[in-house]
């Protein structure tokens, strides 16, 4: 079923026009606590907001590290490195294209893979961001709603299926073992992220030769 998530249905309504879109700061109330904290870290270098993110994610990151076979001390090293990267790279956080949890997840699995291999894991080229990005609260809110749906779908799975999904995303299955699917509705979230990417490409067109 992992292989059947490729139905990329378009989202009704498409991308809202920029002129009708409220600035992010006008509509933060519709976003999750975690996104709000992350935006405060990004925009105001707010250490209190960072501490909230730490309280929420650090114990989960430690658990993720220990699931990956790290000892407690090494898992805490990963927690420290991931949380510091979160602080250092906050400017790259874009709620139009990723939720905080997804963003932290990819930082964490890169950090763990680097630690295992003692060399950098190949990562895709970073996307250029426009100098003055036009925040699109509607896009960020829609992505948030998709993520909420995804989490509901995850908790609605049978125990067996849920375990399989956990194992797959915690790196406990090889690519050859990942043949059975998840039943997670990734098609719609992928379409939503694609809209964010298209919008970014469109903005970049105007600013780059």
């Amino acid at each position, binding site marked *: 079923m*992992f292989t059947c998530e490729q139905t990329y249905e378009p989202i009704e309504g498409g991308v809202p026009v920029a002129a009708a879109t409220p600035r992010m700061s006008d509509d933060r109330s519709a976003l999750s606590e975690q996104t709000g904290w992350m935006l405060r870290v990004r925009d105001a270098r707010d250490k209190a907001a960072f*501490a909230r993110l*730490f*309280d929420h*994610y*650090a114990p*989960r990151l*430690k*658990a*993720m590290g220990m699931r*990956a076979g790290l000892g407690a001390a090494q*898992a*805490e090293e990963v*927690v*420290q490195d991931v949380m510091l990267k979160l*602080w*250092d790279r906050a400017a790259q956080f874009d709620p139009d*294209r*990723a*939720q905080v*949890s*997804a*963003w932290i*997840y*990819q930082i*964490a*699995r890169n950090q*763990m*893979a680097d630690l295992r*291999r003692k060399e950098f*894991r*190949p*990562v*895709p*080229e*970073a996307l250029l961001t426009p100098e003055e990005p036009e925040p699109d609260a509607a896009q960020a809110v829609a992505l948030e709603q998709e*993520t909420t749906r*995804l*989490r509901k779908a*995850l*908790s609605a799975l049978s125990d067996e299926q849920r375990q399989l*999904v*956990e194992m*797959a*995303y*915690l*790196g406990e*299955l*090889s*690519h050859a073992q990942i*043949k059975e699917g998840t039943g*997670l509705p990734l098609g719609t*979230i*992928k*379409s939503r*992220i*694609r809209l964010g*990417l*298209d919008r970014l*490409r469109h903005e970049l067109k105007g600013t780059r030769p």
Partner: protein
Amino acid sequence: MTTGITHHIPQPLLVAYASGALPHPFALVVASHISLCDECRAQAVAHDHAGGAVLEELSGSDLSEGLKGDVLALLDAPRVQARPQGRVGPYPGPVMEALKGAPPRWKRMGLGTRQTILHDGPEGSVRLLYIPAGQAVPDHGHNGLELTLVLQGAFRDETGRFGPGDLEVADDALEHTPVAEPGEPCICLAATDASLRFSSFVPRLLQPLFRI
């Protein structure tokens, strides 16, 4: 971003990449394809959201006392920020990282074909291949999985046509003979989880010599 890509990354490989479980040679090819393909980038980020959902649902482990204070105290400490390599010519950022920013150092393999080995280890190997226009890549089968990403030019084989950004996924069932199209030389990034076994052109005995 490259337009006109028709051959994408299969989902199981994207999930394994997202989770960090994909061996290094294949991860380099997947990261390179994502650098060229917004469709697969969006799909990869969707898998990160599934990973993020799993992370949110994990019951946390207790932290050592003092960890939070340590991290907060380090926020303002100076840290060296890595400067990632960007794309150069046909080579996407992850390939330039593997090349450490230098141009490929090609080794001749005969009939104008050249290679640059980027990584060779117990989990497989990944290399750049340079095939002159119109030239066939030696007929070969595979012991396991082979991923081939076209960076420049194009090739055709029994399964179809592969242009810039296209990814061919071959397993040990496929005996294929890729032929570079006329025009510019074809440059590919190819990863295997085992040594290639050539059925002609390079005798088996010579394989260790060529490390292919």
